[in-house]
């Protein structure tokens, strides 16, 4: 497969996530769109790692180049899991205080 197809797919998913963050008002859905953007970046990293492997393995069949990209995806998933746990705790705390998850009610930092 050409690499441009994977780049185009990741860019489209990322832009859908950006539109979601910009247009929706529900804090949980905004959070889900951030997860969507993270996944688009992950897909792009895996595609680039396989592209790097394809260009190198033509000369050297027993190469292991491209492993770093997939490990970076693994670390991104680790960070995303930690981020989700803290972020959802913040959203629950916010719901307990102002009884809503609409971010329009968060325009004042006090009261």
């Amino acid at each position, binding site marked *: 497969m050409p690499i441009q197809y994977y780049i185009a797919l990741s860019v489209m998913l*990322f832009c859908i996530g950006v539109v979601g963050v*910009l247009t929706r008002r529900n804090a949980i859905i905004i959070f889900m769109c951030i997860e969507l953007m993270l*996944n688009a970046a992950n897909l792009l990293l895996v595609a680039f790692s*396989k592209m790097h492997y394809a260009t190198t393995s033509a000369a050297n069949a027993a190469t*292991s180049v*491209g492993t770093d990209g997939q490990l970076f995806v693994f670390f991104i998933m680790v960070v995303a899991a*930690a*981020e989700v*746990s803290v972020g959802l705790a913040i959203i629950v705390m916010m719901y307990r205080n102002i009884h809503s998850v609409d971010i329009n009610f968060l325009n004042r930092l006090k009261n």
Partner: protein
Amino acid sequence: MGTTQILFWLLSALSLFSAMMVLVSKNPVHSVLWLILVFFTISGHYILLNAQFLFIVNLIVYAGAIMVLFLFVIMLMNLNKETEPQKNIWLKLAGAISGGTLLLLLISVVRSATELQSKTVTTVTGDIGLINNLGKVLFSQYVVPFEISSVLFLSAMVGAVAIGKKN
């Protein structure tokens, strides 16, 4: 057109459609379910790229753990009804225009990049995504970031408990 191409186009169309449905569904529970479908299709792309370790980690961590956490939070807060009271059409239009401009810009940059013109991706074959190779590199070359990520998990756990408890 081989099986790989057909699977690629099918998975791409399904993931783009369900990503759009995450945006347009009014009910947050439906959004979560569509997002689970997006994660499943991205896992399908991983298995198409022969990244088997990331396939199973994506299924377990994202579609399993994180999405269940989202569903729990939505149901605990009793949000499974159609909220979002105000309908500001200009805000949605502005968001769509800025997202579309970003898409146009990125696509045109990728199309004009000459060093990406004839590059291909190895699908189906290639064993760098197997757990054997990844584990060897992870526990030799990347062992310090691995241990640091365990500290990150511990601090995230402490932070979630400290934020979430009633005072």
